[in-house]
């Protein structure tokens, strides 16, 4: 490989700025993480409840369509016409009986099979057949690119790689357990979307949610109201290859505690004018933890922060920018009060959220510095140099774990 990174100490506790600034490495990331060997998030089944319902989204930089066919199955096809390569689907959602590319009216079934080619047999003039596709043209060879699809608990993943391991093995038992805790079979209801464009490398968002060090420091709200504090009871868990992770935390009592009053962002006197922002009602499915933040590498983050639940889809666009799409949802058995509670707590999250708005900001400012001196490196040494599950959150072990996996895949000879 041409873009050679220098890893100080030969571990992953010092991450080269160049890992975030190289177009060449980014192209390889798209190939090796987004287009091969991995399951990527595309959406929730509840977004396409009826036959013919579709949603346009992306995997990596490729446009794909998630669609429910007449049999009720979910298909994911690439939004590239087999003829001239046009991205034919322009609406972001809708309902169709078939897909038709407007350019030359090639039409496809909802499973992605080519069904109609205008003038395939040419035109008849003066008893002669003129033009048309060659006799050996087979529609069966020119469907849309079909992705492999896996659904679990109402969540839809897809892969361009039909040899990819089963979703359950991809997640591994520990992460699968936290996945199933959130998506335990209840039907989901869509509450809506937030979309933001963050001018930083896509990995920084994965790292942000693998970093339990910052929430109790950057996010004053979390510290002050005990939602996320260094002294909360917590666990960090990874899959065997350290690519996915879960940060599990149980809310403390709030108020004073020796460890947090040293934190300058802790505001002991902070009182809300309207306490309904923090009208938290425990739900049976939590089984204890008040927050579980799960990173599924490379494409999605699953959020449970008290009563607010969402998926956060990472859509990279070049090495220095990504779109971040939040889908907030609830469950079919939610009372109206619970729906309102989830919506109210959504004020803490998203691109204007009391807590999350500053995550996008710090990512932008990190990227600015990386671009200016790509030979330098970040430090991820809290808790040592190793990669391991822990029973506390004063460690950057999950970031080291992700880069151990990143190096395995990116440095492999192919």
């Amino acid at each position, binding site marked *: 490989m041409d873009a050679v990174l220098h890893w100080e100490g030969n571990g992953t506790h010092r991450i080269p700025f160049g890992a975030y600034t190289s177009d060449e490495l980014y192209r390889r990331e798209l190939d090796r993480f987004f287009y091969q060997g991995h399951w990527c998030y595309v959406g929730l089944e509840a977004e396409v409840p009826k036959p013919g319902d579709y949603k346009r989204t992306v995997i990596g930089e490729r446009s794909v369509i998630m669609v429910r066919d007449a049999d009720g199955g979910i298909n994911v096809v690439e939004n590239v016409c087999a003829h001239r390569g046009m991205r034919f689907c322009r609406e*972001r*959602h809708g309902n169709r009986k078939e897909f038709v590319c407007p350019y030359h009216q090639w039409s496809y079934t909802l499973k992605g099979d080519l069904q109609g080619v205008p003038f395939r047999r040419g035109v008849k003039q003066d008893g002669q057949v003129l033009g048309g596709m060659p006799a050996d043209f087979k529609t069966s060879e020119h469907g849309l690119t079909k992705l492999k699809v896996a659904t679990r608990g109402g969540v839809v993943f897809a892969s361009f790689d039909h040899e990819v391991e089963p979703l359950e093995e991809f997640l591994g038992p520990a992460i699968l357990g936290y996945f199933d805790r959130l998506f335990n079979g209840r039907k989901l209801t*869509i*509450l*809506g*979307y*937030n*979309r*933001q*464009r*963050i*001018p930083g490398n896509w990995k920084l968002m994965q790292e942000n949610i693998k970093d339990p060090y910052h929430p109790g420091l*950057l*996010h*004053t*709200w979390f510290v*002050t109201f005990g939602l996320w504090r260094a002294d909360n009871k917590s666990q960090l868990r990874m899959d065997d290859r350290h690519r996915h992770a879960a940060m599990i935390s149980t809310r403390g009592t709030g108020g004073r505690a020796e460890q947090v009053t040293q934190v300058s*962002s802790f*505001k002991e006197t*902070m009182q*809300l*004018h*309207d306490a*309904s*922002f923090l009208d938290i009602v425990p739900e049976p499915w939590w089984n204890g933890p008040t927050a579980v933040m799960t990173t599924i590498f490379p494409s999605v983050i699953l959020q449970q922060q008290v009563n607010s639940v969402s998926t956060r889809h990472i859509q990279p666009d070049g090495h220095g920018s990504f*779109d971040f799409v939040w889908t*907030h949802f609830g469950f079919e058995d939610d009372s109206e009060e619970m*729906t309102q509670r989830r*919506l*109210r707590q*959504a*004020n803490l999250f*998203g*691109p*204007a959220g*009391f807590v999350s*708005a*500053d995550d*996008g*900001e*710090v990512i*932008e*400012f990190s990227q600015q510095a990386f671009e200016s001196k790509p030979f330098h490196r970040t430090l991820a040494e809290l808790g040592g140099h190793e990669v391991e599950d822990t029973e506390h959150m004063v460690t950057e072990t999950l970031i080291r774990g992700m880069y151990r996996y990143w190096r395995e895949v990116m440095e492999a000879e192919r």
Partner: protein
Amino acid sequence: MSASNLNFEDWMALTQLYADYASAVDSGDWDLWPEFFTDDCVYRLQPRENHERGFPLATLSFTSKGMLKDRVYGIKETLFHDPYYQRHVVGAPIVRSVDGGRLRCEANYAVFRTKLSELSTVFNVGRYLDTVVRTPAGFKFASRECVYDSEMIPNSIIYPI
């Protein structure tokens, strides 16, 4: 009463309310903002997509003046962010209906953002869907919904639209 019957004084007061609001949220004095609202007000900042598809989620959704004050505290004390200027350009309000002391109004808006040492950019574009009520202290917003066309928030929105 139909919108066209609004008397001149009320029309003057209404356009002054819209101009004052824009001036206040561009001033950097965030404490001015909650005072444009009634105590049990609604303030929402919502993507047009959610609005038109009937999804209830808003980027910000506040249901009391107290929540607006909490947002002001957040802006001033708890939300780390890049400082920026914002500049609202707000169209003349359309009065859709007048019902006693309640006016249903709409207005287009565009907000420009200028970060330090950077060019000015289009930040957020949309329309206000408002309910304005007459109070002893003059016209106030009982409800202001900012429904924005802008498909992507450029990283974050910190200050009030």
